[in-house]
């Protein structure tokens, strides 16, 4: 992506021409070492970040072992620490959110590039990006006071009628719950998916579009058969970045998911995610519970870091392909 841009002092300047640098005295060496030093310092902070969370959780891992991951009951008051319901709620709400956000996000990205006239394109792009600017607590508030009544009165009864009240739309209809959390998350990750997949698709060579059209393809054939497959890895990257955001979203989920750490029975179940549980229990936890919450933090960190590494790989591979 950045092949055309150059480091403004090339590496050659730094190491291969000793006269150039050293002759001018200590100041430049001081400069280089300042840069290095600050980078080292920041790396140390990052390491400390990872270390302190892992360290805090250590007693929980040694004491509980694998049941931390596989236990089906999370009840710190009774010193029972099974994070499985939290992990499941986190993953399920993210997956369902993707189910909404991916088709809409991809569709939006394609409209922005291939359908709208240029002027509208800039406006629509800016509006979609505004979605990302709204703080998550505001989405939470909206979810709590506007969507909860709507879900319980309209959406969820309708969903339940689709399956005759069977899984996955079964159980008590409270409005709040995993389903609503997924809806709110979908709105929140939509701008990420739109922006990245739009950039990835726009970076594809124009030749592909024209090549397909010149064979007599219709617009939808071009998009479905040529553009989307060619941008596949970048789009998967965009989806993963969206997933990463959804996995770690805290306050909006906390406000709409119901706050009950139990094994999810259906999409209507109230639940609690890793992040929302940390947020609600952390400041009032006993040292023992703090270690268990630290373990949740470690699980969440591993999940999001993994998803993000994957996402960066996919996006970078895609931009490498198009240039």
């Amino acid at each position, binding site marked *: 992506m950045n092949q055309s841009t150059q480091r403004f002092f090339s590496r050659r300047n730094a190491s291969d021409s000793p006269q150039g640098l050293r002759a001018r005295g200590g100041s430049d060496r001081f400069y280089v070492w300042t840069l290095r030093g600050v980078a080292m310092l920041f790396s140390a902070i990052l390491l400390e970040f990872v270390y302190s969370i892992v360290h805090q959780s250590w007693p929980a891992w040694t004491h509980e072992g694998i049941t931390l991951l596989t236990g089906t009951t999370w009840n710190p008051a009774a010193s029972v620490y099974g994070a499985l319901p939290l992990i499941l709620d986190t993953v399920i709400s993210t997956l369902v959110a993707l189910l909404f956000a991916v088709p809409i996000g991809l569709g939006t990205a394609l409209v922005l590039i291939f359908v709208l006239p240029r002027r509208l394109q800039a406006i629509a792009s800016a509006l979609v990006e505004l979605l990302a600017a709204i703080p998550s607590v505001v989405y939470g508030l909206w979810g709590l006071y506007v969507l909860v009544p709507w879900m319980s009165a309209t959406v969820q009864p309708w969903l339940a009628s689709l399956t005759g009240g069977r899984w996955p739309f079964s159980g008590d209809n409270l409005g709040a719950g995993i389903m609503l959390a997924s809806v709110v998350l979908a709105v929140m990750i939509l701008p990420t998916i739109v922006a990245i997949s739009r950039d990835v698709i726009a970076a594809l060579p124009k*030749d592909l579009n*024209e*090549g397909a059209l010149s064979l*007599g393809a*219709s617009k939808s054939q071009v998009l479905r*058969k040529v553009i989307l497959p060619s941008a596949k890895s970048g789009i998967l990257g965009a989806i993963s970045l969206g997933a990463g955001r959804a996995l770690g979203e805290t306050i909006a989920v906390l406000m709409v998911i119901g706050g009950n750490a139990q094994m999810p029975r259906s999409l209507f179940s109230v639940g609690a995610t890793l992040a929302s549980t940390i947020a609600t229990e952390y400041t009032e936890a006993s040292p023992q519970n703090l270690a268990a919450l630290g373990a949740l933090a470690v699980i969440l960190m591993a999940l999001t870091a993994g998803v993000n590494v994957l996402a960066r790989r996919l996006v970078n591979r895609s931009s490498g392909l198009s240039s």
Partner: protein
Amino acid sequence: MSDGHDAVGNNPGVLKESSITPVLQLRRVNVSFSGRVAVRDVSFDVAPNKITSLIGPSGSGKTTILRSLNRLHDLTKGAKVDGDLLLDGVDIYKGGIATMLLRSRIGMVFQRPNPFPTLSIYDNVVSGLRFNGVRKKSLLDEAAESALISAALWDSVSSRMKVHASTLSGGEQQRLCIARALAVEPEILLMDEPTSSLDPVSTQRIEELMTELKNRVTMVIVTHNMQQAARVSDDCAFLLMADDRAGELIEFGPTDKIFHDPSDARTLDYVHGRFG
């Protein structure tokens, strides 16, 4: 056949003594982008089973004309094409002609090879047919083989049809793109500087190919390369940029005449490399 003389009027560019029904006729064609005129008043005829080349310096509107022939400007916001563009006597910009159908009759090969990177060689070749609704395997296979043979690619790829197209060399990729266009069996093939990104050996092979393809399709080719135009084309259109930067047709005629006995002094200067 009959509308030739009158419509030509006083335009010096048009082939006057044509005894062949032209497949493609351009009459006072103008192309503008957001109001800025890029090509002005261009008229000439494309004869069947011949190669017509468009030459001229950069900015003289060669590619713009070529892209108006299969309505690729429809994609460009603000682009406008005026005048008559007749394919077998039917105006391709007036109602009744579907762009998709038009483009299956008039194929195109681009400057840079643009095979679909995610598809195999076979899928690339038959992609146009599939776009056009052809499902029958025997027809697809038959067309693919014929197109690859015509593009002189069959011998080297027939054993690895399932391999990704991106594994081919640049020259092979361009021939794959030619095969891909040919598989739809177009009547006309537009080529936009098809060899400009290729090495001399690949270029020569494609030029040979073009001559062989004449019995299969009519070709219109844009080229920067004088020798190429002289070597492969039968008719030649020479364009220049006017003072307001709009491209104009200076002269049109048999390639021999354009290169050896042009009527316009500017043509003589250009083909002898004195400007542009």
